[in-house]
């Protein structure tokens, strides 16, 4: 496939090398599996609030069309499918797609996985109620162009949820030294700290991309409980944001 892409080819290669390990909760993607309940809680709460859905009902996201950009092995796509969403999982790493598709098939889940990019989805005229843009923006070559492309994929009043890593001494210590060097949770070189983005920078980028940021929360690891939780105050390391695409007609 040839296309104009915001994906940095060196980053794609790194994730391709890890694709087969996606679904092992104690394998290389252990940190992502551990983070998953926390980010799902955030995503589900935000979607339910915006689209007026009751999470205690079966298939609360029925009728919502959701894009999981940078879907990897499908850690977010599968839960969204279980909750009833019509989900497209897109990844620029070709090797992730058959891995994710095989796993979804075995689970009896209908998920439309595609080896494609945000740019190509725009060209194809795709539109979504929700775009999940999780732990991706710190890996792209040009964040503003990427976020603007994601914005173009949203229907009016659509929602983008975007998470990334803050850039400060603590995130360097946690994500690079801690997760990659000490715990060896992630292969060395998974992250480039210089590409991390502060919440203020991300809000600014989101606005420039034509979105209206409405919420942000920190995701904090508690070493005693060995689990992640959401925090309104501590956005010092991992954090997640919600923005809405303004309805053009109201502008």
């Amino acid at each position: 496939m040839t296309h104009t892409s915001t994906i940095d080819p060196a980053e794609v290669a790194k994730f391709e090398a890890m694709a087969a390990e996606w679904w092992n909760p104690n394998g290389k993607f252990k940190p992502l599996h551990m983070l998953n309940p926390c980010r799902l809680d955030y995503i589900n709460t935000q979607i339910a609030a915006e689209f007026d859905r009751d999470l205690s009902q079966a298939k609360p996201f029925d009728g919502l069309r959701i894009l999981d950009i940078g879907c990897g092995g499908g850690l977010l796509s599968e839960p969204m499918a279980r909750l009833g969403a019509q989900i497209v999982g897109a990844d620029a790493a070709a090797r992730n797609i058959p891995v994710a598709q095989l796993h979804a098939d075995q689970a009896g889940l209908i998920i439309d996985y595609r080896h494609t990019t945000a740019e190509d989805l725009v060209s194809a005229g795709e539109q979504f109620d929700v775009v999940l843009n999780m732990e991706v923006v710190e890996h792209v070559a040009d964040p503003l162009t990427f976020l603007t492309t994601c914005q173009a994929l949203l229907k009016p009043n659509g929602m983008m949820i975007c998470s990334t890593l803050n850039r400060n001494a603590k995130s360097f210590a946690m994500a690079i030294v801690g997760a990659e060097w000490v715990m060896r949770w992630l292969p060395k070189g998974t992250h480039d700290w210089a590409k991390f983005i502060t919440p203020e920078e991300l809000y600014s980028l989101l606005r420039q991309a034509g979105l209206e940021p409405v919420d942000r929360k920190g995701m904090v690891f508690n070493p005693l409980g060995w689990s992640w939780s959401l925090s309104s105050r501590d956005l010092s390391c991992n954090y997640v944001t919600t923005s809405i695409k303004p309805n053009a007609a109201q502008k």
Partner: protein
Amino acid sequence: MVQASDKAAHGQSRPSGHTWRMSYDADIVIVGGGLNGPALALALAGGGLTSVIIDARAVAPRAEAGFDGRAYALAIASKRLLQGIGVWAGIADKVQPILKITASDGLSGQGPAPFFLTFDHAEMEEGPMGFMAEDRFLYRALMDAVQRTPGTTALFGDGVVAQEITTQGASVTLASGKTVTGRVLIGCDGRGSGVASRAGIARQGWGYGQTALVTAVHHASPHGGTAHQFFMPSGPLAILPLAGGHHSSIVWSEDATAAAAIQGLTDTDYLHALRPRFGDFLGEIALAGDRFTYPLSLSLAERFVMPRLALVGDAAHGVHPIAGQGLNLGLRDVGALAQVLVEAARRGEDIGAIDVLDRYQRWRRFDNTAMALGMDAVNKLFSNDNPILRAGRDLGLGVVNAVPGLRRGFMRQAAGLTGELPRLLAGRAI
């Protein structure tokens, strides 16, 4: 049943979005229809998860039993869970509130020692310390609730002969040849758990060389809602008040040889052996129930979960039945596991994934192990005739009694109100 009819034709190039579907008889397959199994099915139904309960035994004899003396001391937290799953209303008028508990050290043949450890419900905000509920009433109330609750199915009178765990589901084969499938298989099948042994989960056990003799007595004086626990050299004797005021359930522990001899006695001689231990504080006593024996032992499964499989209650941890903690611990497992599974389902997670089930194990394993070892230690301390230990015990019990804060701590522990409570046991919706 697994339906994989159109799964064969796929290659890498199949159209996106095309898939084959797998369907299950229920979300959860529960093996064991005693008390924890039906309670779990009801708790799961409250959170929108369906289940099938399988048991080799038929429902009828146990639900239709006459008075046989078998009863449980339900902790307050257990009552709240039963309320939350719609069962309490079915037994509320048949239970005896426990208003007071006395614990005391007994000398062979001399009845209880003077230092009584007394727990009074007036010191607790939550009302009674607990409730005595007869097995037949509790079982019937649970089965009635299962019958009327959508999404819970009881398959009784047909036992499991084989089970299979795959990456995506679990299936069991019954004696009749029927197959039942689900996303998760739960063993509520007691300390001899077939679910655990078929899955290759090893157990660690400790025997005590002791046997519990269980029966019920009628006594001339009313019990006033007081439960008594006498720690005798040969083992504890619990006298637990039953509804009506003149019946109490007896859990009488003796070393295995003595217990076998006592169980072999005629009713008259059995009562003759019980009288000096029981004492005369409730007036004349007479046998009023069937006589059961249970060998006392501790049995811990080496793990409570595997991918797509979890163990609950005695299948995970069989404890010494002092203070009726076996069922109370089991109902805590029920509340915790139901909450973990319902939360995972609402989050969109795969409810049988090991990282989901591990949350249940982390939550319950420490609590259960601590309780099992704690009761083991209490029993060993009190089942001893060493005079120095005796003096220490009498003093120790007296000291606990004299310090209200310490005593309230014991009471809250016994009432099941300490530790991180599952929502159903805290009186909240799942």
